């Protein structure tokens, strides 16, 4: 299992992190070293092997075998390299970011396990290996969101994340069992050519649900925004550049099956809704990281739209470049927060220009996200617009208009995100801020710089992607008109943001703008959905629990009825036992009535 080698260093490092956790400096460098080794192995895989599926039998079911299988197909290697490439940067950033000694062991353990599962996910060639990774992703994500256990909000966020993820896991496992019982195989390759059956339809729809939960698409968007309660490197790693893209990636590799079943359009519809939800919420949001989280939802939605059009190249292009600029933006956000004493409100953050390196990387990330030529983000977004630029029917035109609105909105919110913290701090804050910006550790500044380089170089993928990746679907071709439209939209967004937040010095949404903010902030309504679901689960738990309680009550009252308290035997044969006997008899009677009549 050559490909599985790539996760070995990280797994070893994870256990070393637990063993060595009293030696905090060592733990950091062990993790960093392991991630570099993993990267080297990933590069070696890229250079040596060519599209191999390897499998070994895990266990047998009847005459069929359940395999663990891995593949080194180009698309899998692409994700592997993205993950392996970002991991060392994140670990390096964490060195400066996370200083509490007592947390190091747990942090690096969880992060290493996460990185290993993400790598396993990227090279898995069947549902079994994928599901193992999928579960581990969910669990590590849950643990890392709730990493700061003393923050009640973080605990709630973690619970919300796991609730959503569990919905996805249920869907996934049911889909897997449906596929297994119909085709007796879990291999993706075998399923590409599988005959369409009702079971396959059901399974693929369920997998779409699972992908939506993982990638925080409508109606499962809210957990991602709340996940920002976790440490910033976690947000940069799991909740923007890697884990949330597992859903997109899953649909990407299963796209041939969806094409066979003719249900690809589904992703366009859910995609555009999610994109609007993400962009509007990002505009309504004040929390410096949540803005980026909503923006991630929008990015992922754009990828789903591209897949829905069977424009796999466009989806992959955005997939690659988004990883770089989003990780970069999150790292910058973390740096601003660190410098500003963990201030999370965008409008309470100031003086971001004080650290030149930080500011330049922020600008590069922002320009890329907004989509300004020749940043790589431009190619990613323009590719998707060019796919949608098809005016043959009314729904297509509506879609194109909506996409343009999304582009405009995202340009506004990201420039707002850039401009607002540039403001000068009030006097009482200015002094400390200046010092804090100047003393930001190197380890928090170098990784974003490297990413910024990737953000710029990433444009190359536009030209080379077709040669690197043999994929089905439409090729990418960005025309002049797409470029012009995209640029106009972005510049308009830039102008609006400049006018509102630099010239007029608007201070976000106040009471006066409550209506406007309410219109944009759909997060609240979606939260209500979640609350209903959670409430339903807890309520039913409580109802059944009451049943037990009610027995306790009965015991209490019947106990009072028994006057002879001194009678030990009486006390032992209390109401509870009687009730248990009664339940036994009632159950027996019910069964008899059901089956004998």
């Amino acid at each position, binding site marked *: 299992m050559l490909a599985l080698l790539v996760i070995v260093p990280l797994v070893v490092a994870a256990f070393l992190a637990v063993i060595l956790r009293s030696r905090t400096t060592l733990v950091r460098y062990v993790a960093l070293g392991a991630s570099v080794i993993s990267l080297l192995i990933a590069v070696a895989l890229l250079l040596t092997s060519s599209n191999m599926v390897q499998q070994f*039998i895990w266990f047998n079911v009847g005459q069929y075998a359940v395999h663990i299988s891995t593949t080194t197909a180009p698309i899998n290697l692409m994700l592997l390299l993205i993950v392996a490439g970002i991991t060392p940067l994140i670990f390096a950033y964490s060195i400066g970011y996370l200083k509490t000694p007592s947390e190091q062991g747990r942090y690096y353990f969880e992060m290493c396990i996460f990185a290993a599962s993400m790598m396993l996910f990227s090279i898995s060639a069947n549902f079994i290996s994928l599901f*193992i990774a999928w579960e581990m992703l969910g669990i590590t994500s849950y643990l890392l969101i709730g990493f700061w256990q003393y923050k009640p909000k973080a605990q709630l966020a973690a619970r919300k994340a*796991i609730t959503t993820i569990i919905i996805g*896991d249920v869907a996934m496992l049911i889909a897997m069992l*449906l596929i*297994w019982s119909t085709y007796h195989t879990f291999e993706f390759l075998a399923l590409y050519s599988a005959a369409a059956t009702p079971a396959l339809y059901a399974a693929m729809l369920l997998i779409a649900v699972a992908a939506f939960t993982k990638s925080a698409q409508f109606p499962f968007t809210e957990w991602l925004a709340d996940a920002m309660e976790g440490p910033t490197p976690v947000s940069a790693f799991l909740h923007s550049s890697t884990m949330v893209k597992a859903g997109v990636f899953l649909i990407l590799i299963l796209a041939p099956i969806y094409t066979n079943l003719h249900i690809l359009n589904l992703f366009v519809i859910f995609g555009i809704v999610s994109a609007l939800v993400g962009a509007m919420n990002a505009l309504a949001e004040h929390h410096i990281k949540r803005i980026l989280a909503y923006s991630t939802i929008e990015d992922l939605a754009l990828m789903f739209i591209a897949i829905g059009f069977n424009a796999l190249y466009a989806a992959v292009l955005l997939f690659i470049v988004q990883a770089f600029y989003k990780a970069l933006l999150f790292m910058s956000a973390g740096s601003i927060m660190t410098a500003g004493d963990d201030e999370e409100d965008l409008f309470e953050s100031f003086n971001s220009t004080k650290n030149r390196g930080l500011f330049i990387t922020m600008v590069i990330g922002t320009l890329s996200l907004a989509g300004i030529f020749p940043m790589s983000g431009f190619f990613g977004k323009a590719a998707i617009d060019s796919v949608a630029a098809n005016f043959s029917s009314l729904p297509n035109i509506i879609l194109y208009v909506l996409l343009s609105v999304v582009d405009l909105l995202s340009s506004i919110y990201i420039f707002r995100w850039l401009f607002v913290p540039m403001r000068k701090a009030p006097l009482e804050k200015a002094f400390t801020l200046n010092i804090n910006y100047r003393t930001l550790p190197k380890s928090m500044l170098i990784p974003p710089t490297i990413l910024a380089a990737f953000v710029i170089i990433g444009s190359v993928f536009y030209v080379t992607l077709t040669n690197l990746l043999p994929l089905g679907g439409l090729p990418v071709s960005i025309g002049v008109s797409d470029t012009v439209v995209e640029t106009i939209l972005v510049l308009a967004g830039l102008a609006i943001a400049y006018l509102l937040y630099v010239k007029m010095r608007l201070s976000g949404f106040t009471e006066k703008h409550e209506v406007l903010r309410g219109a944009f902030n759909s997060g609240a309504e979606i939260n209500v959905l979640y609350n209903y679901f959670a409430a339903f689960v807890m309520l039913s*738990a409580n109802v*059944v629990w009451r049943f037990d309680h009610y*027995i306790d009550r009965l015991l209490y009252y019947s106990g009072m009825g028994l006057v002879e308290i001194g009678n030990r035997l009486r006390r032992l044969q209390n109401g509870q036992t009687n009730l248990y006997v009664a339940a036994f008899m009632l159950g027996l009677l019910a069964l008899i009535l059901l*089956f004998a009549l």
Partner: protein
Amino acid sequence: MLIGPFYVAHAIIALMLALIVVPLAAIPRRQSHAAFLASSALLALIFLLSAYAFLSGVDVTVFIIFHLYQFSAFFLGLFAFALLLVNALSYEHYQDFTRFSMFLSFAIVGMFVVAMANSLITILLGLELMTLPTAFMIMTSGKYHIEAAVKLFILSAIAIGALSFAIALVFPYDLQLALSPVSSSALFTGITPNAGNYLLILSIILVAAAMGFEVAAFPFNLWVPDVYQGAPGNVTALLAGINKKVAFVALMEIFFVLFVQFQPIFSPVLILLSIATMFYGNIVALVQTNVKRLLAYSSISQAGYILIGLAVATQFGIEASIVQIVAHLFMIIGAFAIVLWLESKNLRTLDDYNSLGYRNRFAAASLAILMLSMAGVPPLLGFIGKFLVFSSAIDTRALLYLAVFGIVNSFISIYYYAKVIDHMYSGRSKELLPMGRYTYAVVAVALAATILLGVYPNFLISAASAASKALLAL
């Protein structure tokens, strides 16, 4: 075969008798250590012999009432191995182990008798021999446990009553009360399920209720949380880990041998029990704060998963259930070993478990892995069991819904399992909690089984398949 099958069977029975004698001999001088060593050695011997019997494919009937074949050898070995763990746990827990050991050996013999049973009477006697000493074990553990003991005693008496009545109803059809299909009896050939055999149907339901009590199926399981919580942890481990599994063995023996032609009747009963049990166990577990109670409810829901495979009633279904039985046995013994040890430090509720991850790393990590396995996270043993059980239900298309219920439940359970893990790693206490070495060993063995059998499940699956085939071939 190196040793004749006849001798193997007799050797096992002789060892069982020796198991009873040893603690009786040790009691007068309170030689706890000697009793522990001797009983462990005997259990190990039984384990080895039954493993040998299983691998060599024995099929021999002894004294008419015992039948040693691959199915019984599998469970003999499994129980002997699990009992070694419980024995070690109990030895560490009690000052005077001999008295406890006596009751334990009676219960052990009961378990083995059920596993080897070749007649209905043997099953009945075996179950009684298992349950009553268990009640005594709880009772003699201290005055706080008497209530639990009495509850167990009274309710098991009713269950045994139901089972006796069921057996009496079978008598006209099966004069020897032997474990062979009723319809093959010489007197009443050609009995079919739809011929209006109300007596047999009633008998099936009574068996289901009696076994429903023993395996803790809803609504016959209301005693479980009280007794599990009230009993000392080692007895709880015995109850949840082994007693319940013995009842499953008895259930399989009665339904799949005696009533095998009545599958259309007993399957729906088991389906109903399974669904109700899963939902009841999981949903109530969500709101528990006492860890022992939480595990009690969780083990109720696990019984529901096992029932799925039995309700499917195909060879694959039984095989899957056997794997799930093995999985749950190791997970719950490991978990209760930790709970027992923490209980002796006066830590009982979820809040008490805070910062366990800092106070004893091994215990917290093991409990976390066991919880993940119970929740069905691959590649641990719990996942294999659930995967097989659910796919056995999906294989027979008619029971797809049962698998869906199961999957939904197994994910509901992640909530409370995650809650336990959550608590263990929150808080900051640094005060170390040392663990006794026997508890340590038991947890390590259970953990190793959970991980190793999860990563390399093929041996277990083929063994379960052989056992289930042997059962159905009767």
